[in-house]
Structures are given as structure tokens and as C-alpha cells.
């Protein structure tokens, strides 16, 4: 038996787990090999030293309430979990119901109310601004078009179908309506007649 193989079975030798043949072989090796014998003796002493830990024991009354504590912990573990919002509301309620919070809770409620009102107002103002801005922009972009109505075209220069898509502020002329229908303009009600609307200046 070589040293490497012998060292692998030191543990089995000390626990009498070797077959009789192997036990004889390793004992023979240990008798012949000083290095292995020293190693084996050190390992055996280490095992005996570690085994002394068996004498460590908890205090005698340590396990007296073990089962009771186990039941307590188990019942806590098995309780259904409370949702986070319930815990949060419960926590706030607990804080506010404290004696020292009697004055503060009114202050807090007022502050929350004011915050909500301000928030709602701010949201409303912002929405209103957005609507107004949109209208103003639209008006600015379309003012030229409004001030310059398209003259009613003659039947010969009616736009093609695909060119009929005009802005919403301009009346759409239907084919054949050129003479029968007078176009209506937004600025018709303005007292100053635009030059382009002066009948005298219109030449057909």
C-alpha cells in the first residue's frame, strides 16, 4: 500500500470501517512509514479533540418552552398576510389617534384638503390654458386665409376633385354650384368690406 492510498483511509481505520485485509495492510504500512504514522496520529488526535464538542449542552431549562414558542411562531407564520395598503392606513390611523396628535390631526386634515383644492385648481387652469393656446395658434395660422376669401371660380376653372380639400374655414364649392350658390365667409358680418369682395372689382 502506498502513502497516498493509506492516507485516504485513515478515517476508515479509526472508525473500524476497513475490511480485515485492508486493516492489516494499512497497519503494516504505518509500521514501516514514519511520515504516515505521524500524520495518522495527528488526525486521530484531531478527531478526539473535535469529539469533545459533544459535551457542549444548552442550559437544562433551554427546551422547557420550546414547544410553546414553536406554536407561537407557527401561528404567526400561518396568519394570512395583510395587504400593504391596509398596513399603511392602519399605521396612519394609529399615529393620528395618539393623544399627542389631537391638534396635529386637524392641521394635517386641513393641509390635505388645501393641497387637494390647489391641485384641482391647478389642473383646471392648466387644461384651460392648453385649450386657449390651441385656439390662438389656430387663429393666427388661419387669419390670412380668413381675410382673403377665395373668389368664386368660374365653371371653367373649377378645381379638380383631388384639389377640393381646402381648409375648414373656406367654403367648399361643389361642381356646378359656382354660380347658383354664394359662398359664405366668416368675415361677412364685418362692416369693412374686403377689397376682394368689392363687386366692382370683380371681373368675370
Amino acid at each position, binding site marked *: 500500500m502506498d502513502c497516498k492510498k493509506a492516507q*485516504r483511509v485513515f*478515517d476508515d481505520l479509526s472508525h473500524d*470501517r476497513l475490511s480485515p485485509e485492508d486493516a492489516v495492510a494499512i497497519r503494516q504500512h504505518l509500521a514501516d512509514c514514519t511520515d504516515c504514522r505521524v500524520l495518522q496520529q*495527528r*488526525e486521530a*488526535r*484531531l*478527531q*478526539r*479533540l*473535535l*469529539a*469533545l*464538542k*459533544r*459535551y*457542549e*449542552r*444548552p*442550559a437544562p431549562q*433551554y*427546551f422547557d*418552552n*420550546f*414547544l*410553546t*414558542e*414553536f*406554536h*407561537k*411562531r*407557527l*401561528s404567526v*407564520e*400561518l*396568519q394570512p398576510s395583510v395587504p400593504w395598503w391596509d398596513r399603511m392606513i392602519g399605521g396612519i390611523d394609529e399615529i393620528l389617534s395618539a393623544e399627542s396628535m389631537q391638534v396635529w390631526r386637524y392641521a394635517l386634515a386641513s393641509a390635505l384638503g388645501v393641497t387637494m383644492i390647489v391641485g384641482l385648481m391647478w389642473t383646471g387652469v392648466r387644461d384651460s390654458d392648453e385649450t386657449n393656446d390651441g385656439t390662438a395658434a389656430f387663429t393666427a395660422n388661419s387669419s390670412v386665409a380668413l381675410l382673403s376669401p377665395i373668389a368664386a371660380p368660374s365653371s371653367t376653372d373649377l378645381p379638380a376633385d383631388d384639389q377640393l380639400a381646402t381648409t375648414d374655414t373656406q367654403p367648399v364649392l361643389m361642381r356646378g354650384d359656382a354660380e347658383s350658390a354664394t359662398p359664405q365667409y366668416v368675415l361677412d358680418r364685418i362692416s369693412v368690406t374686403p377689397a376682394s369682395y368689392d363687386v366692382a372689382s370683380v371681373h368675370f
Partner: protein
Amino acid sequence: MKFGAKNISENKPVAGPSAPSSLSVASEHQLDLQHQDDETLVAQTQKGDANAFDVLVVRYKERLYATIYHMTSNHEDTNDLLQDTFIKAFKSIDRFRGHSSFYTWVYRIAVNRTINFLKRRKNRNQYSLDDLESSIQTDPDLVEMMSHATPRREVSLTELQQKLNEALQKLSEPHRAVVTMHDVQGMTHADIAKVLKCSEGTVRSRLFYARQQLQGLLSDYL
């Protein structure tokens, strides 16, 4: 009847020493349970008899305590881990199919939870050591060790205990688990392999390297 957590909770009130489910109240049923083997108790627990699990707790709490304690060297942590182990076992007992013994199964839970705990607690070792039994004074190995008249060996038992625990805490968690199970508790390689779900070769290898490290750490006592 298979039972879920709710049923167990109903069957098992928070028990004080005088609560009906406590073993201190020796009802006939409970006395009967104490004589049952593990398989029967597990089957009873799975059917909803929470008292049967109490018997298993009482039966194995000390052995599991020792295993966890030798790995943590702290009896407060050990208490928490032991409670956690039994709670985990109780909640999972429906899934226990009897492929191994109940003890191996619960032992595996304890060791795995302890290893995970130690990994999280890394480098924060706080010793809280148990008492030494007075019978250690007559242990032949200790007597033999103390009989060697070297100054270093004239240490107090408390100091020896401290050094042993410090040395063990310097091992990696898997190595410490193997040394605890084999050298302290006397389990076989095969049993350790079952608990750790690894091969016997792995157990032997871990034991070999752990002992080499321990020989260096405890050279004054060898």
C-alpha cells in the same frame, strides 16, 4: 384529509403550557402518539393531527439543536434556526413522500437553512457558547490530552472550547457541515452524502481538506 396551513392553524391554537395541544397535558391520545414511529406520526400529521408533529419536534429537537449549534457556535442563532427548521418542515410536510426517513428530511432542512444563514452572516461571528457538561472532566480523550505536560495544554476547558469553536468557524460552510456531522456527531459518510445530496467521494474530500485546515489551526493541541 390533506390539510393546508389554515386547517393546521385552526387545529393548533397558540398553546401555553396548559393549552390542550401541549404535551405537558398528557392526554391518552398524546401518550399513544409518543409510542408511534416516525412514519406513523408523519402520516397522522398529514391527516391533520397537529399533535403528532409535536411528538416529532420533541423527539428530534435536541439532536438538531446540536447540529445547528456546532455549525453556528451561537445558541441564540441556533434557537431561531431550529424553530425555523420545524416551521418549514411543518409547512412542507404535505410534500414529504417518505423517500428518506423523516429525520434525514428534517436534518437536511436544518443543515441547508444553517448553511444559508452562515453565508449571509459571513464574517460576523459572535460566539455564544453553551455550557460544558461536567462529565467532560472524565472523558478518556481529554484526560489523555491533559496528561501531556506541555505548557500549552494546561489550558482551561473554557479556553479549549473557545479555540475549538473559533477554528471551526474559520472553515467554509460546507466543510464545517461535514466536520460537524462526521467528527462531532459521528455520522457515516453515506448518511452525510444523503443529507447534503452529494457523493460519498465529495464528503470524503471535504473532510480531508477541512481536517488539514483544522490541523493547522489547532496545532497547539495536537
